[in-house]
């Protein structure tokens, strides 16, 4: 009989039980959950990483961490109900228990971006995986040149974290620009696509690092616009989504060309994947 393995050697395929401490509704189909572990401490994570979250008896899906990496009291996840599993997670009531394993995957190169202008470009739900990077950047903004957060959504009602966007936007050390695809006339903000915002903010393209997360079409158009503005392909980083099963590089479910998104990604460099992004149905 062997003793239980130490936490670090625990079976990475075995979800640990985490309790839902709080639920916040963000939009009609998106909620943010605070999760606390039943048995262990809250591990460290790097902005950009994800967990596999298991709705017991329903299934398991990858979900990015969306909270402040400096807050070690809980894990924060922002989930949109699109199918059976994500709906079960998004519908979890405070006090209920979900399975969780992780954190997995690559991180936004926040520290490597120090000394550069930094463009953080999010579309739709893509603001959630970027929010930990924004927290980390804003905690020590003096390390960077100009900082801008560009965010696009379908309509005003579907924007995430609107209160926080307003708080960030009021700061002197960061430019926040928000746009929506369509709006009714009560919206006085910007209407148009995200790449159109790029021309409206001041930054020094040869000295800029860009972090992009959102629907793949939006990533493609945004990366193209950044390249046209003079940002180097190797300084553009994007987070890719592929279906996952094991999340530890074993099953090949998440394969994207030569990369396994669960291990080499989800954050990948544009110069490595530009050709693949242009190919249909990879």
């Amino acid at each position, binding site marked *: 009989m062997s003793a239980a393995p130490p936490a670090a050697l625990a079976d990475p395929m075995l979800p640990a039980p985490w309790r839902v401490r709080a639920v916040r509704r963000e939009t009609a189909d998106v909620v943010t959950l605070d999760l606390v572990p039943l048995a262990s401490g809250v591990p460290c994570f790097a902005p950009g990483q994800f967990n596999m979250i298991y709705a017991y008896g329903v299934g398991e899906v990858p979900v990015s961490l969306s909270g402040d990496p400096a807050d070690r009291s809980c894990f924060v996840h922002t989930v949109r109900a*699109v*199918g059976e599993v994500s709906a079960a997670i998004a519908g979890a009531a405070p006090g209920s228990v979900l399975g969780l394993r992780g954190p997995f995957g690559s991180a936004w190169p926040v520290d490597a971006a120090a000394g550069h202008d930094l463009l953080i470009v999010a*579309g*739709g*739900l893509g603001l959630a995986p970027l929010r930990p990077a924004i927290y980390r950047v804003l905690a020590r903004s003096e390390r960077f040149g100009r900082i801008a957060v560009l965010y*696009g*959504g*379908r309509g005003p009602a*579907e924007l995430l974290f609107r209160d926080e966007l307003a708080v960030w936007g009021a700061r002197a050390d960061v430019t926040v620009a928000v746009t929506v*695809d*369509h*709006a*009714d*006339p009560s*919206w*006085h*903000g*910007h*209407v*148009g*696509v995200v*790449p*159109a915002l790029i021309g*409206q903010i001041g930054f020094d393209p040869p000295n800029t690092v860009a972090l992009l997360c*959102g*629907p793949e*079409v*939006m990533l493609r*158009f945004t990366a193209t616009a950044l390249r046209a503005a003079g940002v180097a392909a190797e300084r553009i980083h994007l987070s890719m989504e592929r279906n996952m099963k094991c999340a530890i590089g074993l099953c090949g479910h998440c394969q994207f060309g030569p990369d396994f998104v669960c291990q080499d990604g989800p954050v990948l460099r544009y110069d490595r994947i530009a050709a693949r992004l242009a190919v249909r149905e990879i």
Partner: protein
Amino acid sequence: METLERLLLGHEFLAGIDPALGRRLVGCARNLRFAPGEYLFREGGPADEFYLIREGRVALELHAPARPPIVIESLGGGEMVGASWLVPPYRWGFDARATADTRVFGLDAHCLRGKCDADHHLGYEMMRRLLPVMVRRMQAARQQMLDVYGHPPA
């Protein structure tokens, strides 16, 4: 007149234009100001002026019966509004409403078309500046049509 010329030629839409050509536009131009909520023009109205936004914000709106109006694009300082002044029958295809205090140059369309017809250098220069903006906006409209933030179908 001298400041109008300096300001007009300093507008982003005319950036880098040969001053001799640019100066020919000044006679067509006037300064206009719109308060928030005021319309620059309404759908179906005569497209008799071409607008270059100096500062402020303009929402382009479409109306459909039994539905609230929808803002399809918003424009700010340095941008131009509309191309219907160039295309017969010279009628606007949407509403343009200021959503902030907005200052624009209005260029009389009849005057502008006359000058472009009479001087093809000037006409070509205007086309060279208009066409990329129109293409960019058409591509943006196509991206909006994709509704990329919606759920992909099952």
